[in-house]
């Protein structure tokens, strides 16, 4: 696996490494730190290969921890390392540095980690959160990457500091007492004591406490060992059975050294155990240090006594996370039972809790130390060989009682904050999650590995549900959907699911943009409605069984955000959890109400159906909108309507936009041709065309016989064709690019009498540099002024007059062209409108 990094070799005698997730802006940011430096050149960029450390079966499971370990190995040769957007990957490096005599890298700079959203949804997420904080606590500098330029000199200065640190001398000699509680482990006590006798350090003594062993041979072995190690000065004492806590407390009472090292009688000590634990304690000044463990089975020694190589096969690794009290509420992440502790710290908390029943006494001990404010950490070395024994205490005791032993220590702390029951609730949530995850018949999608997250800000995983293929050629709705996908797909990982067959010209760019695109064939079997649901026809049509299957299947993955494009997708809301957002193009019920209001005197089947549909849609909207705490609409009026009628949640304005760079440079005022661009299967547009051809265009023709009308758009039906023919207009069906049609036109008309949201055809026309003549309803929701950006006329005669004026008065034409283009440049670009939306979404996700 490859992790892209920038290496600036030999900058002022130092090897400097910039590390970032994949390529991304962090590399460029790092480059700016050295801008103008004679040592900097582009050849300094290299790729550093590193991989997560494979420890086989490892507890706790954390991909981030394994990556952090892999990175620690890779960055060792460098003097200065900058962690751009991956503070958590610095954790293992910094931990190694804390406990080593030779500190490499000399200087570590991290950018503060970005928030991971409102909740930590797994133990792995909790650990990642901790690693980020650990890195920030122990790095030399914590600064956002934007501020790194100012740190270059200081980092270089630290990079040249002496590399070797000398640990402080222990306060007593010997410095360490190894305390071994012993109960019936006759077979394993001799190898343990032998391994202790072979330690590389002699600065320790041993106290073995027999906790009232009852098994045959246990007392004899104990007596034999006592005799064997008498010359060493090691002490062997007996007591009445009081459990491992009592035995350890007894040993601590007898000890007189500065440090106490706990080791169980059935385990095995590597030769450097005492040396490294003592050195780490003296270097760091910490109060409690645990270490990593290697679990093995069998009665024999896990190490070859001559070579020191590990001979026992690994069962599992145990890499404690460190002092993470929140994760410890769920499970043991602190480490133990092997730990070196300052004796006065043990005395300060009264030693181990003397309780013979439940297990977890070591786990509880570290938690109590951490809650008491003592400094707890983990030496990142395998210094504990843990023998997997049948019938170990934690295996035969009641798990609930064991965990209660841990949780009871948190309760007073949380009670002071009024958070009654928090400890039990966190543990309960963890258990519940573990239970359902373990019993799931297929594995839950694991979070994307760190290498898949790119850039300074974590890329969001977004699922978009769209009611029709987002083909930008056909109609405003599809255009807006396409623009939304395009914007977010450039910045995040987008998976789009849309209903309807997709043509190649649309599918190809989408598949390039999105991670995955699913197009569900239109007209499949309908999905089953919730009981008692009253659903408008169009929503019902969009509630497709295959689409629901797709959404259900995809919902097994973890999504940061799901965008429901329009209310038509509202019925799928129960299939997706997490943060759900509804994007509306119109207030549909209002739009349908307007259609119903057309031709009231002579209602058509369309308008009559729209009346009923409007009522149903209104009810459906009021039921659906409150289900989305976050919505966005195209106009302020629509947003206010949604807020008012939903009663909860909030609605953000994300206005329609256009491509402001689509100006037709050779547009002329004297073409005498007017363009009517629209999706020609959309009733408000058909009505507008009827209005245009029936009432407006004859008046235009009367005043200006040479005027031409072009009707262009997707999916024209027979009605449209007949309307166009009646007016003598040229019909351009399904044009590939509207700009090609508009090139031969001088103006655009939008004589709409119904509609919702805002009309993109007006913005597109302005962007192309064509003056627009519209009704007031046609340009509602847009911040436009009559005579300044376009001409607004509602009366058919005035409308016709305005068309003639634009076609004949060059000054008016130029003024409207200039102002219109300026307006869309200033206010109506897609990037601008979706940028604000993205900012709000990130803020809502706690990543803003």
């Amino acid at each position, binding site marked *: 696996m490859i992790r892209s990094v920038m290496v600036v070799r030999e900058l002022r005698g130092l090897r400097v490494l910039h590390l970032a997730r994949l390529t991304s802006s962090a590399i460029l940011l790092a480059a700016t730190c050295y801008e103008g430096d004679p040592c900097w050149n582009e050849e300094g960029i290299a790729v550093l290969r590193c991989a997560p450390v494979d420890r086989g079966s490892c507890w706790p499971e954390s991909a981030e921890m394994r990556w952090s370990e892999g990175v620690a190995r890779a960055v060792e040769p460098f003097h200065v390392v900058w962690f751009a957007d991956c503070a958590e990957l610095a954790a293992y490096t910094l931990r190694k540095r804390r406990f080593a005599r030779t500190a490499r890298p000399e200087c570590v700079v991290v950018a503060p980690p970005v928030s991971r959203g409102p909740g930590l949804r797994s133990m792995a997420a909790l650990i990642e959160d901790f690693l980020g904080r650990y890195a920030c606590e122990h790095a030399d500098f914590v600064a956002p990457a934007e501020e790194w330029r100012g740190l270059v000199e200081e980092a270089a200065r630290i990079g040249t500091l002496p590399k070797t640190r000398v640990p402080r001398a222990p306060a007593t000699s010997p410095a360490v007492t190894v305390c071994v509680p012993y109960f019936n482990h006759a077979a394993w006590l001799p190898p343990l004591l032998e391994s202790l006798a072979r330690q590389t350090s002699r600065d320790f003594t041993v106290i073995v406490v027999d906790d009232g062993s009852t098994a045959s041979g246990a007392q004899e072995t104990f007596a034999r060992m006592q005799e064997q190690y008498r010359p060493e000065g090691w002490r062997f004492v007996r007591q009445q059975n009081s459990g491992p806590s009592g035995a350890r407390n007894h040993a601590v009472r007898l000890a007189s050294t500065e440090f106490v090292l706990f080791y169980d009688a059935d385990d095995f000590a590597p030769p450097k155990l005492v040396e490294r634990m003592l050195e780490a304690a003296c270097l760091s000044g910490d109060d409690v240090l645990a270490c990593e463990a290697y679990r093995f089975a069998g009665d024999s020694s896990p190490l070859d006594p001559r070579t020191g190589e590990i001979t026992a096969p690994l069962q599992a690794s145990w890499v404690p996370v460190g002092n993470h009290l929140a994760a410890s509420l769920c499970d043991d992440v602190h480490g133990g039972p092997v730990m070196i502790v300052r004796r006065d710290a043990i005395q300060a908390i009264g030693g181990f809790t003397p309780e013979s029943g439940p297990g977890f006494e070591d786990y509880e001990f570290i938690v109590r130390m951490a809650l008491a404010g003592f400094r707890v950490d983990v030496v990142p070395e395998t210094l504990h060989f843990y023998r997997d024994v049948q019938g170990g205490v934690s295996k035969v005791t009641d798990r609930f009682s064991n965990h209660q032993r841990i949780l009871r220590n948190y309760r007073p702390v949380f009670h002071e904050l009024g958070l009654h029951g*928090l400890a039990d609730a966190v543990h309960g949530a963890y258990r519940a999650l573990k239970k359902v995850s373990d019993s799931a018949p297929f594995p839950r999608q694991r979070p994307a590995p760190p290498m898949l997250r790119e850039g300074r800000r974590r890329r969001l995983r977004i699922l978009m549900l769209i009611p029709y293929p987002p083909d930008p050629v056909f109609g405003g709705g599809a255009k807006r959907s396409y623009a939304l996908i395009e914007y977010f797909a450039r910045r995040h990982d987008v998976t789009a699911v849309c209903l309807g067959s997709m043509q190649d010209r649309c599918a190809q760019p989408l598949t390039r943009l999105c991670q995955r695109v699913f197009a569900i064939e239109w007209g499949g079997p309908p999905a089953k409605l919730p009981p008692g649901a009253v659903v408008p026809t169009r929503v019902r049509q969009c509630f497709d069984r295959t689409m629901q299957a797709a959404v259900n299947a995809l919902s097994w993955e973890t999504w940061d955000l799901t965008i429901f494009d329009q209310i038509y997708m509202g019925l799928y809301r129960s299939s997706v959890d997490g943060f759900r957002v509804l994007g509306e193009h119109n207030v549909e019920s209002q739009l349908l109400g307007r259609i119903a209001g057309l031709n009231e005197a002579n209602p058509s089947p369309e308008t009559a159906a729209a009346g009923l549909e409007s009522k149903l849609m209104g009810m459906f909207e009021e039921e659906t909108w409150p289900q989305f705490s976050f919505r966005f609409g195209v106009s302020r009026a629509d947003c206010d309507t949604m807020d008012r009628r939903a009663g909860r949640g909030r609605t953000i304005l994300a206005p329609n936009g256009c491509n402001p760079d689509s100006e037709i440079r050779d547009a002329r005022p004297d073409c005498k041709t007017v363009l009517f661009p629209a999706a020609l299967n959309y009733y408000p547009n058909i009505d507008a065309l009827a209005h245009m051809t029936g009432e407006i265009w004859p008046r235009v023709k009367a005043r200006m016989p040479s005027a031409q009308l072009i009707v262009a758009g997707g999916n024209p039906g027979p009605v449209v064709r007949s309307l166009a023919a009646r007016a003598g207009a040229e019909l351009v069906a399904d044009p590939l690019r509207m700009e090609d049609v508009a090139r031969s036109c001088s103006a655009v008309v939008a004589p709409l009498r119904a509609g919702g949201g805002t009309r993109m055809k007006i913005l597109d026309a302005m962007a192309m540099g064509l003056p627009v003549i519209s009704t007031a309803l046609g340009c509602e929701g847009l911040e436009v002024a009559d005579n300044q950006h376009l001409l607004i006329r509602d009366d058919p005669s005035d409308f016709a007059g305005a068309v003639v004026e634009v076609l004949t008065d060059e000054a008016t034409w130029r003024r409207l062209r200039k102002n219109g283009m300026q307006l869309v440049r200033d206010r109506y670009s897609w990037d601008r409108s979706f940028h604000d939306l993205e900012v709000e979404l990130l803020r809502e996700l706690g990543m803003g």
Partner: protein
Amino acid sequence: MDICTPPASPKRGPYVAACALSEAVAEAVAEFDIVYFQDLANSAFTLARRKRFTDDFRPVLVTVLHGPGEWARAAARRYPISASDLEENYVERYAAEHSDWVVSPSRYMQTWLEQRGWRFRGDRVRTVGVPVVWNPPPVAAARTSPVRRILYLGRWDTASGSDTFSAALARIAGTHPEVTIISPRASEESVRGAPFRVKGRAGLKHEEWVRLLARHVGDSLCVFPPMADCAHFPYSLIEACMVGGLRLIASRTGGIPEILGEGGDRLFDPFPQPLAKALTAVFEGAGPAPAPVYDIASANRRWLNLHGEALDSRRPGRLFSVPSPAVDVCVACAREQAGFPRLVEALERQTGVEFTVTAVDTSPPGAQTAAVSNGIAERHQTSGWRFLTEPGLSAGAAWNRAAARGRAEFLLIADANDLPETNAIARMLECIRRTGDDCLVVGSRPLPGDGDREFLPLGPCLTAAILDPDILGSPMMLVRRSAFEASHGFRELPDAGREELQIRLGLAGYRLDVIPEFLAHAPASVPGSRSLLLETYEEALSRRGAPGAAKALLGMACEAESVTARMNDLPYRRRIDNASFRRLKYNHLEISRVDFRRRIYLLLRGCYRAALPLQTRYWLHDFVMGVLDRLRSVRA
């Protein structure tokens, strides 16, 4: 009385089942002199909350502790896993804390709960044991002989000690006599797999099994071995104690030591090894059984005394005095000018209390908003009410500015869209003076034409609010100025809601509560940013060294819920997977077998329930049980 938990209603929020039941109970028992409530899902909640804010001393509320939800879950080896569990905890804790009297059968239960953050008023909590209302059977003077029979007492399940008992007997295999299991539901079938010779005696009534004990008192050993924290003050053990001379050993857990006494060899730690040791000691010793320390007669007497004392009790009313004006009304108005004049009118109509008003208009300059405000300002030039204009401020910042202008002891935080009842301020002030609380919120009804959903916050249940912040509620809030200032007021962020301040006040140890009255009309509250609320929790937790705990609770609970929801959808998944969605490459799904028998059972049960009314089902059930009882007796 037959009172059922009302179902969730769309017209009322938030829904907490225990709270809804307590409201129904409150109406039903209001006329009684004294009401005893059990602590599990304590139905005293609503009455206790109402009584806090009034002078009423009837009915006297007595909460009898015997094992609230927390205890029940611990005994079942479960944890709270949902907001409703935590909300129920809050209801129970609140009701017990504010009941007039709390009765605990044992000192143990009181201590157990206090360790979990329950608070009791020292002068109103009594340890009285449990009443026994039937007379023990006469027992002939027993001659002690070697143990020929072990009588296992209790349910045959893990929590009641079946595993401990079996493991202990396995340790002394071959040396123990026959075992008889006396259990409500243990038949010989259920204990067939037990690794010892066993007889099961199920379905015995109190008198029957006590008579059985009495019959075998001379040559039997009675064992009561529940696991740690799985027995509180077992009634069956007390009944067994009525059999004089019975040799009896029991786990040292719960309130059992208070029944049997700490001295002697009758108690063992609730693990196999100590039980085996205790059994061996009894087999070898066979001495006379010491008398239990628990005295049934004096326990009965204590109950009657408590009843008399509670009936005679009166709560002295008290009111903390405050200088006048006592309240500064702080109003933030932004783009809600339609509501603002209505609010001002409502404030003008307030009765019975002096207060000042500071309104901060945060609307952008120009347009109609300032004109409306200015019109109102002109009307109140002489009344001392202040109308400020600070465009662009967040609501929190506006309230902070308004609060800084006043000097009264209490701040009423209102939004321009809130509409207080005529007596709202006077009533809220009276309540806060009565209780000495630091922050009070009220219930709200919808504004005219804004639906029909009422909202009565549950209260400052801070842990549940991590999962469900709606329970805090945010309509009109009366805050003590000192608490407000010590907490640095509202966060001046656009998405910080009023509940954020409530959480901070709660985390800082200030006393919060809800006046259970609808004193305002308000629009449905828009919750503030969830992330911000979590940050508030996390800041407090970070100071205590446990950052991440709140985020972990929210994240993991949501994840567990969502996985569970998906799991429940498996049969449907199989259908869709077979249909047409193979290209998603989810074909590695292995769908678990659908349990048709359970489905059929659920279907039949649903039909049965739908077909017969509740009373008929009760009658049918009683009839069938009666017939079965008769058959059993004939067979016997």
